[in-house]
C-alpha cells in the first residue's frame, strides 16, 4: 500500500512559511550579525555547519519579516524550545496528573537528556514537546512559534525531527524513500541532501533496500537521516538506543550527538542509560511529574 501525501501539503506550507531560504539566509545573517542576535555557542556552531544544512536563523528571520506577530524577538529566537508550565492529566480510568508545571528551555546547539523511571511520563513529555500530543495546560513555543493545533503539522515537518525507540520506518519503502518522506510531504526536492545524509550515517550502500530488511542499528541510522532531512532546529529522540545492543547504542549516540552539534541543533533525548545521558550537555530527571 503506497500512501502519497506530498502534493497535498504544498499550499499549507506556502501559507505558513517560506520553502527555500538558502539564498536569503546569508544576506539576513550578514546584515543582522549572528553574534548580535544569537548566543555565541550557537553562532559558533552555525559557522561550523556547512552547505544547505543550517537554515533556521534565516528561516526565523524570514518568518519574523513576513509575520511579526508570530515571531518573538531575535534574542528569543535562539530558544529552540520554550515550554512553560506544561501539565498533563488523564481523567480515565482514574484522574491522574502525570506532568506537573514543567518548564523547559533549550537553546540551539544544546543537548539535553531526560532520564526517569518507566511510567514517569518521559515519552508523554517528549510527545508534548514534539506536538504529537496536546498538553492539558501550559504553553509551548518552538523556534519562536507558539504551537497550536493549526501549525502542528508544519512544526513537525519543518522544525522538529523525531527519532523513536521502535525506529518507525515505513517498512515497505526503501531506505532512500523513507529518508525523503518529510521532503515529499513538504513537496520539496531533497534527493541530493538525502544521499548526503545517508552517506553521513553510513547507509549509502543500503539506500535501495526496503527498510524491513535492515538491522536494528541500520534502521535507527536511517531514522536519524530522516530526522535531519528537512534541517529542523530541534531533534527529539525517544530511547533511540532502547532496542539496540551496547555497541550499536554507542554508535547511534555518537552519530546523533555529532550530527546535532555539527549542525547546531537542539537535541532532547529521553533515555534510561545514564552513561549515554552523560554525553549530553544537560541532564534532567523526571520524577513525580516534575523535571529536576
Amino acid at each position, binding site marked *: *500500500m503506497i*500512501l*502519497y*501525501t506530498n502534493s*497535498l*501539503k504544498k499550499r*499549507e506550507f506556502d501559507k505558513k512559511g517560506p520553502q527555500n531560504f538558502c539564498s536569503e539566509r546569508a544576506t539576513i545573517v550578514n546584515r543582522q550579525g549572528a553574534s548580535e542576535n544569537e548566543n555565541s555557542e550557537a553562532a559558533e556552531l552555525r559557522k561550523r555547519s556547512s552547505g544547505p544544512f543550517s537554515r533556521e536563523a534565516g528561516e526565523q528571520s524570514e518568518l519574523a519579516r513576513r509575520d511579526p506577530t508570530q515571531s518573538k524577538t531575535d534574542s528569543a529566537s535562539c530558544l529552540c524550545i520554550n515550554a512553560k508550565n506544561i501539565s498533563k492529566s488523564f481523567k480515565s480510568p482514574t484522574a491522574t496528573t502525570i506532568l506537573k508545571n514543567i518548564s523547559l528551555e533549550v537553546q540551539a546547539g544544546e543537548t539535553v537528556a531526560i532520564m526517569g523511571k518507566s511510567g514517569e511520563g518521559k*515519552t508523554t513529555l517528549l*510527545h508534548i514537546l*514534539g506536538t*504529537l*500530543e496536546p498538553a492539558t495546560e501550559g504553553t509551548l513555543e518552538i523556534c519562536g512559534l507558539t504551537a497550536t493545533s493549526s501549525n502542528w*503539522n*508544519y512544526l*513537525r*515537518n*519543518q522544525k522538529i525531527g*523525531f527519532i*523513536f525507540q*521502535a525506529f*518507525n*520506518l*515505513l517498512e515497505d519503502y526503501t531506505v532512500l524513500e523513507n529518508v525523503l*518522506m*518529510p521532503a515529499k*510531504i*513538504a513537496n520539496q526536492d531533497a534527493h541530493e541532501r538525502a544521499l548526503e545524509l545517508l552517506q553521513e550515517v553510513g547507509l549509502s550502500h543500503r539506500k535501495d533496500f526496503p527498510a524491513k530488511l535492515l538491522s536494528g542499528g541500520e534502521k535507527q541510522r536511517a531514522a536519524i537521516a*530522516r530526522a535531519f532531512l*528537512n534541517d529542523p532546529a530541534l531533534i527529539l529522540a525517544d530511547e533511540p538506543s532502547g532496542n539496540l545492543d551496547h555497541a550499536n547504542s554507542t554508535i547511534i549516540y555518537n552519530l546523533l550527538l555529532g550530527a546535532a552539534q555539527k549542525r547546531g541543533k537542539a537535541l532532547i533525548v529521553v533515555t534510561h542509560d545514564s552513561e549515554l545521558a552523560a554525553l549530553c550537555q544537560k541532564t534532567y530527571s523526571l520524577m513525580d511529574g516534575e523535571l529536576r
Partner: protein
Amino acid sequence: MTLIALMSVGVISLVVWLIVLFLSVTEGIEKTWLHKLTSLNAPLRLTPTQNYYSSYYYLADSISDSSHYTARSLHDKLLGPTDPHNQETDEAIPTYWSPPEKNADGSLRDPVKIAASILSDLKKETEGLAYQDFEMSGGMLKLELVRPAVGGGETHSFLTQASYFASFADASPYMKELISPPSMKDLNHLFFLCAPEAKNFQKKASDLLSQVEIKTLKTNGIWRVPLALLPENTPIPATAHAKGIILTGSEGTLKRVGSNLFWNDKISTLPIYLDKEISFDAKLVKSSLESAQKQADLRFHVQGTTGNTLLKGEIAWQGVEIADANIQTIFSHQPHTTPFWVYGIGQKLVLPTFSSQEKGIMLSKQFQDNGVRIGDRGYLAYPAATAGALQEQRLSVFVAGFYDPGVLTIGNKCVLAPANVVHLINTTSQVEHFDKTSREGFAVWMKEIKQAPEIAKKLQARLKSAGIDHYWKITTYKEYDFAKDLLQQFQSDRYLFTLIGLVILLVACSNIISFLVILVNDKKQEIGILQAIGASRKSIALIFGGLGAALGVLSSAVGVAAALLTLKNLDKLVQFLSFLQGHDAFNAAFFGSSLPQELSFQALLFVLVVTPILSLIAGLIPAWKACRLSPSAILRSE
C-alpha cells in the same frame, strides 16, 4: 487486503454491469417499440380541425357538380381545383356557412395545398423527412379460406372480423421493414390456388414462376418414391403401406433392380413410401410448364439424400412442397405480370391490384400466424344507403401481404388498403367510424423520432405565418391516445429501474467502507509515522477518500467494459438462457427477433457519475476515522 479490495471492485463492477446491461436493453426495447409504433402511424400527424370541416373550402364540394356533390379527401384536394363551386351552375352557397377565407389577391385560400407545400419545404430542409396524406375508415373484413382437403379436393372456411381500414402508406420510409416477405407457405398456397382453374393454370403458374425461382423441394409427410429416383440395386430404409391405410406401415428396405421394386428382397406388390422428410435441390423442367394443366404436370430435376443414399432424377410436383425459393419483390420498373404480394418499384412500395374489382390489402402478421395466406380472397363490407334502405356494400380484396403492427393496440384489427378504397368507404358509408378530425390528415416521418417535437414546432410556426394554423392540429407520438399510456409506462419503468439500480449500487459501494476501515486499521502505524513527520489530517483523509473514489472509477470501468462485451454477445447469452429454460427466454412478439444491443448513453452516464460519487462518500467514513487517529497513541503502542 488485496483480496478484499478485489472483492469490492468485483461486487461494484457486477452491479455496474447489471445496471448498464439492463438499462441498455430496456432502453433499446423502448426504442424498438416506439419505432414500430411510429413506423405505422408516423411520429407526427397533421390533422384538419373542426374549422376545416366547417369551412367553405371543405363544404363547397358537397354542393359542386365538379366534385360529384361529394366531400373530397385530402388527396383529391391536393390534385383537384381549390374552389370547385361554379356560381352559375351549382346551387347557391348557404348563408349560414362561414365566409370563404381569401388570399390577398382575392382567390380562395387553399389550406391543404399550402400545408402540403410547407411540408414539402420541410422535407427539403430536413434529411430523412417524408410525408403522405392518410385516411382511415372501418367496416367488416370477410375472407374465404380455401385449403387443400386431406385425401384430395378442397375445403372452404370463412373469417370475419370488424376492422379499421387505413390507407397504405407507400411513402413511409419504414413501411418496408414492417412488411413480412412472402413465406414458403404463402408460395405453396398460391400454387395451390392456381390448380382449381385448369384452363388458366398454365398462365397463372407461368406468371408465378416468372417471379419465383424454386430452389428446394421437400417431401410432405409420407411420399411415394418414384421408381426412377431410386439408385440401382441399393437398399434404402422405407415403410410399406397398404394403399389408403397409411398408418399400418411396416419398416423394411427398398431396392430397385431394373424396373422392379424389391421390398425386403421380394418383388413388391404394394406401393412403397418414404416417411422420412427429404429435401431436394430442385430445378424446374421448363418444358413441363408449356403443357401443364395441373400442378402434378410440372416436373423438377431433383437431387437429395436419404441416409447415405443419393436420390437423383426427375419428379413430378406431387407430394412435395416448396422449401426454399427466391422471390422477386423489388423491380426496377412495373413488372409485366403483377405479383400477388406487395412489391417495390425502386424505393416505392406498391400494393398489387388485379383489376378495379380486386385490390390487394395487408393484414397484421397475427393473421399469418393463424393460417391466413397471401392470395386468400374476400371483401371489405360496410353499410351504405341505397334508394330503398341501408345495405351492405362489398369491395373485393385479396390478401397481398402481412405487416408487423408492433405494440399498437388496434394493430390486429387494422387492415391496410389502397387509399381510394378507404376514401370510398368513408364517403359512402353511413357509419362514422372515426371522429372527422382524426380520420384523415398528413403523416410525417423523420429519421429520428426524437426530432418530432422540434419539427412540430417549426411546422406550427409556418402554418401560423401562412394564416392556416386554425385549420390544422399537429400531434406528435407523445400525444397519441394509443401511445400515451405506453410512453408513460416506459417512463415509470425507467424511473423505477434507475431507483432500484441506485439502491443496489449504494449497497455495493458500502463494501468500500468495510474495505477501507480494515485498511485504516492495517495501516495505523504508517498513518502515525506520516503524521509524526508532518502529514496533515486532511491529507491522510484525502488518501482514503481518494482511494474510495478510485475504487469506484475502476469498478465503473470494469463493469462498463463487461457490459459492452455482454451486449456484443447478447444473442449467445439469450440462447443460453433459452436453453436453460427450455423455451424462448424472450418472446419475439414483445422483444423483437433479438434483444437490442446498443449501449445506453443515459445508463453509461448514470453509472459513470453515480458510482464514483457513492464510492467517494463511502470512502469518507473510513477517511474520517483515519484522520482522527492520534499519532501519539499509535506510535506509543508500536
